[in-house]
């Protein structure tokens, strides 16, 4: 027997809708096996992972807090991927945004600066993210260098720059030699939405980004161009769409969103700049973008789901001593299943006997 792929005449719309659900189901089944291998009760572990975080207010807020950067970054990445531009370096753009915005917070520390500080930080973060993303984009359109590799290399560079700043010039003198800046002033902090809670203004911004993404893709000519350039490059050329310009545009937007997410994260939930501000948001956002089918609403749902895996992973570590890396394994497996199920949209699987019977008789 042999498995062969048969191209469908048309994309299957039904499967396009349910394929993410199939992928999640398969991932959870696989996760059960991983838990069993680790010697944990799979049912109990699944409950800790996926049910418990949904049952109390604190965890629910925490899910929204984690989903905020994921959704913002993934919306930008989805624009890139739709235009067939592979921005893999969102993690670096996130870090650079955090660094650039923090610069203002550090410089105005204790100066009684006005309420313009936080907006200034957000603008700086977004601008820095956009400029940083434009480096691989320009290298691609001007010189033909692979944007995949260059954007990824810049992640390591951004990481080292952040490390240098918090260990060197920006280190908090009262920080007991820890590599961190001082806590940001209140005017340099993203306000929380609930008194004493963790939910912050960034979540509202993320929702606005989702809405803007939906409008851009669904209602504007630019959005149409982005989709055509990615889906049918030849047709786009005949249509006179400038693919290079769209690469620059989508990279700039996604960099800006990643940078904005970065500064919101340090000025909000973290409260200061330090290494390790991102548990791999930039990479997890790639999964969010694909799981959400490169669609803004889908991304919002996918972002909440992946945020749940972060929170569930932390709770499982505390409650059942399940290693935190299970979350990353889970996310990796999920991406595989999402991609595999995507194959179902374009192809039909069929089993055929591997040794075709000898045709008898003359043709």
């Amino acid at each position: 027997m042999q498995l062969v792929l048969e191209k469908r005449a048309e994309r299957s719309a039904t499967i396009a809708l349910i394929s993410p659900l199939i992928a999640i189901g398969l991932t959870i089944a696989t996760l059960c096996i991983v838990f069993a291998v680790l010697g944990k009760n799979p049912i109990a572990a699944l409950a800790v992972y996926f049910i418990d975080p949904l049952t109390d207010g604190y965890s629910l807020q925490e899910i929204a807090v984690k989903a905020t950067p994921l959704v913002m970054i993934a919306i930008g990445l989805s624009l890139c991927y739709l235009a067939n531009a592979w921005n893999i370096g969102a993690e670096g753009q996130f870090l650079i945004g955090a660094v650039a915005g923090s610069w203002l917070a550090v410089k105005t520390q204790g100066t009684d600066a006005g309420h313009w500080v936080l907006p200034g930080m957000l603008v700086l973060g977004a601008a820095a993210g956009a400029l940083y993303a434009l480096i691989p984009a320009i290298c691609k359109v001007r010189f033909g260098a692979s944007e995949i590799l260059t954007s990824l290399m810049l992640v390591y560079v951004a990481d080292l720059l952040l490390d240098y700043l918090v260990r060197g010039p920006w280190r908090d003198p009262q920080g007991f030699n820890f590599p961190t800046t001082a806590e940001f002033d209140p005017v340099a902090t993203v306000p929380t939405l609930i008194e004493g809670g963790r939910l912050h203004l960034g979540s509202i911004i993320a929702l606005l980004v989702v809405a803007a993404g939906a409008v851009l893709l669904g209602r504007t000519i630019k959005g149409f161009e982005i989709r055509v350039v990615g889906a049918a490059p030849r047709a786009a050329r005949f249509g006179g769409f400038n693919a290079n310009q769209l690469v620059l545009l989508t990279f700039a937007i996604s960099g800006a969103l990643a940078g904005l997410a970065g500064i919101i994260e340090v000025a909000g939930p973290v409260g200061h700049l330090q290494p390790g501000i991102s548990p791999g948001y930039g990479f997890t956002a790639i999964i969010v973008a694909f799981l959400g089918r490169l669609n803004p609403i889908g991304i919002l749902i996918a972002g909440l789901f992946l945020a749940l895996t972060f929170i569930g992973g932390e709770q499982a570590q505390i409650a059942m001593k399940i290693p935190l890396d299970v979350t990353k394994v889970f996310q990796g497996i999920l991406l595989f299943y999402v991609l595999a199920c995507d194959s179902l949209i374009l192809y039909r699987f069929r089993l055929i006997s591997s040794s075709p019977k000898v045709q008898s008789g003359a043709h």
Partner: protein
Amino acid sequence: MGLIEAIILSVLAASTPLLLAATGELVTERSGVLNLGVEGMMIVGAACGFGGAWLSGSIIVGALCGMVAGILMSLIFALMALGLAVNQVATGLALTILGIGLSGLIGAGFVGERITPAPHLHIPGLSDIPLAGRILFGEDGFVYLSIALVVGVWWFLYRTRAGLILRACGDNHVSAHALGYPVLRIRLYAVMFGGACAGLAGAYLPLAYTPFFIPGMTAGRGWIALALTVFASWRPARLVVGAYLFGAVTILQLHAQGAGIGIPSQFMSSLPYLATIIVLVLLSRARTGGSTAPAALGTVFVPDR
């Protein structure tokens, strides 16, 4: 041991994992498959390689464990990219994300443990020749293996019929298929070879480069290996030059830090990554006349029956 000798030795050691991983990827890409999961295969190879060596007490068993781990990872990739015709870029990324998680899971028990690193060769007489002797005849086995591997790959690609067929698959899979060659099977073997090399390259790090395992110890070397195949224009001979050049940049920054020059260590550490970007730009720019990449690189192939 003189300073120059020490520098050359450390350059060879730093270059070897790059050369191993890039050689495997070169064969994979020559068959028309772009496997961006090198970093993921390497990091799992590092964890399994260290685990194997630590449990068995043997460097060779460790190296084999790393290779097997790399092959298993590459099979996941092959199933997706070849079997299910999924986009190769996305699949490769997924492989890296999965690999980083898996290596953390596998390696968690080994953090803090130490092993005796792979011994350096010693041939009485030859190894005692000043300078050249130690460098030519006093390396660890992996260094010789990596060079033998590149030579073997060169011979295979350009001097054997099988190599010709493999290159044909990478340049035009439709024609190769029409001629009756099993394109997908050939690509499967190429992907597995790439996995074995990446796994071995990862295992080299805890087995010979440092005698311990830490999570994330590949530090982007898999990605640099990918850039090296571009640097080498998909030719084995240029790969050797590229790998040693990058090894030299890595060591340069280490020695510069050791010499206490006034530049912050983080800026020196970013040199290999910046060098990769610059090299990619310069090479891509020089090649405006036409790409030297295998023509079918990264495209899916679904055979019609």
